């Protein structure tokens, strides 16, 4: 394995006295697509928020050799980390185009952010709706906008929190295709998913989280073949459950 781009060692996050993530270590190599699987409440979202600096965490975090531990969210964005959160966190009263322009905010003085034309070619639906308020978009369009907005910031490592959440199967497939294509273009990706089947299909490597700990780790083919994964995550739980948004949000 090459030198990791993101390296987390013994990361723990606690809400008060409850530890939601306990001593998780993981790494993402450049240009690889790594997925974190797990049931509802396994600590996946908490882990991503800790990696991004949204939540304070214990343990060590390195990105391209740089210690992230004390850096605030904005400084991590400046290094090329990007998180598409589960709730998308769009600027709902602003137009689609303004959302996209703000995605390139970190390049405002230097130039070099994403190209709007290129983004619109990648997401033609957004081009049609560029003057519409982001809050008026459908669920699938909102996810597309969240991804497009993140891409405008030319991330080096893109973290996605349940991009398939609440989307129709056809759109889930489209989202996964987009994620795979980004990886092929050289963006390292950390994908958190409850939809294990869809995630393992495109991932290179995977971790399985349970009760805040990594219980299983391996390349995606091994995981797909693993009996425990098949039983726990590729069965009925691989499908959508409607109450998840409320429970994890």
């Amino acid at each position, binding site marked *: 394995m090459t030198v990791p781009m993101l390296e987390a060692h013994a990361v723990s996050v606690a809400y008060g006295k409850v530890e939601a993530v306990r001593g998780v270590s993981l790494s993402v190599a450049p240009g690889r697509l790594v997925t974190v699987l797990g049931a509802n409440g396994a600590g996946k979202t908490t882990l991503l928020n800790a990696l991004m600096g949204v939540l304070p965490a214990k343990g060590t975090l390195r990105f391209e050799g740089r210690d992230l531990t004390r*850096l*605030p*969210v*904005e400084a991590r964005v*400046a290094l090329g980390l990007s998180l598409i*959160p589960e709730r998308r966190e769009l600027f709902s009263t602003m137009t689609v185009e303004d959302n996209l322009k703000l995605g390139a905010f*970190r390049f405002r003085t230097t130039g070099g952010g994403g190209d709007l034309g290129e983004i619109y070619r990648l997401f033609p639906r957004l081009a049609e709706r560029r003057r519409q308020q982001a809050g008026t978009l459908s669920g699938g369009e909102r996810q597309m906008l969240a991804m497009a907005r993140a891409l405008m910031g030319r991330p080096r490592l893109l973290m996605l929190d349940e991009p398939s959440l609440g989307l129709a199967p056809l759109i889930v497939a489209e989202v996964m295709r987009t994620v795979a294509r980004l990886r092929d273009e050289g963006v390292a990706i950390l994908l958190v998913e409850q939809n294990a089947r869809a995630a393992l299909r495109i991932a290179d490597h995977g971790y399985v989280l349970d009760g805040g700990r990594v219980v299983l780790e391996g390349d995606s083919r091994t995981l797909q073949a693993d009996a425990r994964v098949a039983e726990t995550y590729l069965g009925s739980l691989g499908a959508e459950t409607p109450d998840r948004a409320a429970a994890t949000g």
Partner: protein
Amino acid sequence: MDATILLLLLQDGVVNGAIYALIALSLVLVFTVTRVILIPQGEFVAYGALTLASLEAGTLPGTVPLLLGLGGLAFLADCAEGRHTLDGRGLLRLALRDLALPALVAAAAWILAPTKPGLAVEILLTLAIVTPMGGFLHAVAFRPLAHASVLVLLIASVGVHLALTGLGLVFFGAEGSRTPPLSEASFPAGPLLVSGQSLWMIGLTLAIIVALWLFFSRTLLGKALIATAVNRLGARLMGIAPSLAGRLSFSVAAFIGALSGVLIAPLTTVYYDTGFLIGLKGFVAAIIGGLASYPAAAAAAILVGIIESVASFEASAFKEVIVFMAIIPVLLWRSLRSAPVEDEE
């Protein structure tokens, strides 16, 4: 009351309302971006008026040492805030912004003040002295509380207001000041005599509104402020630091406050504590706009100005009472109409 008097009162109300509109707009801006109800906005107004008055008199304004002091405090606060990320270049940038810039403004004031360089230069100097204070105050008093509740921020805001009023007394003394009007001209319009001063006030207010609109709709920095107001976490994930947005909105508020001070200084005698009442009237307008809508706040400010001028004619002893009572039906209507607003986060 006949038609002529009513017209006069309306004219008076619109001119005063223009100032309240400027204040209401800055209150809305600061609140939506930082959740701070900026009570000290009135102090920026008073500082602007008093600074211009001392420059008019050819003396060094008391706000100059205050600016230097606040800059020094802000430098310490910035260093503490950035202690984990600061490198040599960052430190230099902070020193330029917090120490060198105020020093430069102070030097300019020190050299220019005795020469009485004329109203235009004095106004620019006034704006240059007061505007940076907004950002400095944010860094010193509000950024460390960025995660606090609206109530805690309000209490801090009251504290800053009291401190700035006291400092105003120390640096400017208890006497009031008044400056000559921006324009001595006047134009007959039907039964009214429209003064050049009131045209300046309305014109500059409109200019500021247009400038704000352009800033928010055309510049990425302006959009970043709106984005922070709409979705703080979303903005942070785009690399828009809340401290940057906060500092910027406080600076805009201080600029608008100082300009309002420059505009009212010829109309009324301004004392170190005059700003509070002016700020409160702007606050009434901002509340009518729900602390969220710029157009509603500006329109409400004109209304507040008109209520005030009519009240001062009809029942001058109750002028302030009537203005502030106007807020009660609005609050009632708002609370009946909308679900209770939860404290954010």
